């Protein structure tokens, strides 16, 4: 069996969807963050698949892109956790369902 681009892309899409589900369903803010990380990983997988399979003058672009995504994800995670801690300090919870002072 020959592995095609579509195989990898499909795995990426499924991973992305799982990440999205995690991000949208978890009650814990940190859980949501984990979902986001999964989505970013899915994107990375997709990018690298393209980098590997696509006809391109600059195949390196995909890899470069992934480097930046990873970096940014790290920064985002740091800030997210800081904010989660900040919320926890104020509210003694990181439960998304209860972080809803701001509404309507």
């Amino acid at each position: 069996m020959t592995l095609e681009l579509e195989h990898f892309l499909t795995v990426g899409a499924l991973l992305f969807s799982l990440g999205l589900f995690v991000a949208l369903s978890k009650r814990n803010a940190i859980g949501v963050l984990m979902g986001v990380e999964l989505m970013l990983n899915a994107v990375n997988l997709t990018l690298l698949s393209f980098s590997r399979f696509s006809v391109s003058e600059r195949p390196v672009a995909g890899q470069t892109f992934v480097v930046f995504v990873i970096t940014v994800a790290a920064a985002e995670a740091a800030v997210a956790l800081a904010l989660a801690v900040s919320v926890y300090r104020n509210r003694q919870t990181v439960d998304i369902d209860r972080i809803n002072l701001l509404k309507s």
Partner: protein
Amino acid sequence: MEGFGVNFAFWTLSAVTLGAAGGVVVSRNLLHAVLFLILAFIGVAGFFVLLSAEFIAMAQVIIYVGAISVLVLFAVLLTPRAGRDNGETAMALPALLLAIAVATVFIFVVNDTNWTTVAKSPELATAELGTALLSTWVLPFELASVLLTAALVGAIMLVRSREEEAEDALA
């Protein structure tokens, strides 16, 4: 890309990665979820190797598994037991349907498209990646460093305790 080894690797990695991601979904305990997450990260790193991006795979392991996961673990450990609940919100069902819809759309589009692919992997030396980062994409490269600095500065500010702030104000 063919051959048994590659096929085997692909399917195994797929199973591991998606399974681990599923573990994140079903784990009721946040700590278990973090562990599943790390497994998923490692699986993805395996994919990267399969896609001949060894350097990236390494970076993935170091940054995600090393840094981010540890960060998450710290955050989990910093919050008391009550904060380790990883249950679903009331929005779980809509989120599930939506995730299925998104997957459907993505997979449909991915398979609907006529990709023009090369059979053979382009030989990408890690040096090429370095060159690219320091020539064409030097600007984002620098910006990323600024970004990390800013995030760091900000994160520190956000988590500083009231006492520290009081001292700060006196200074």
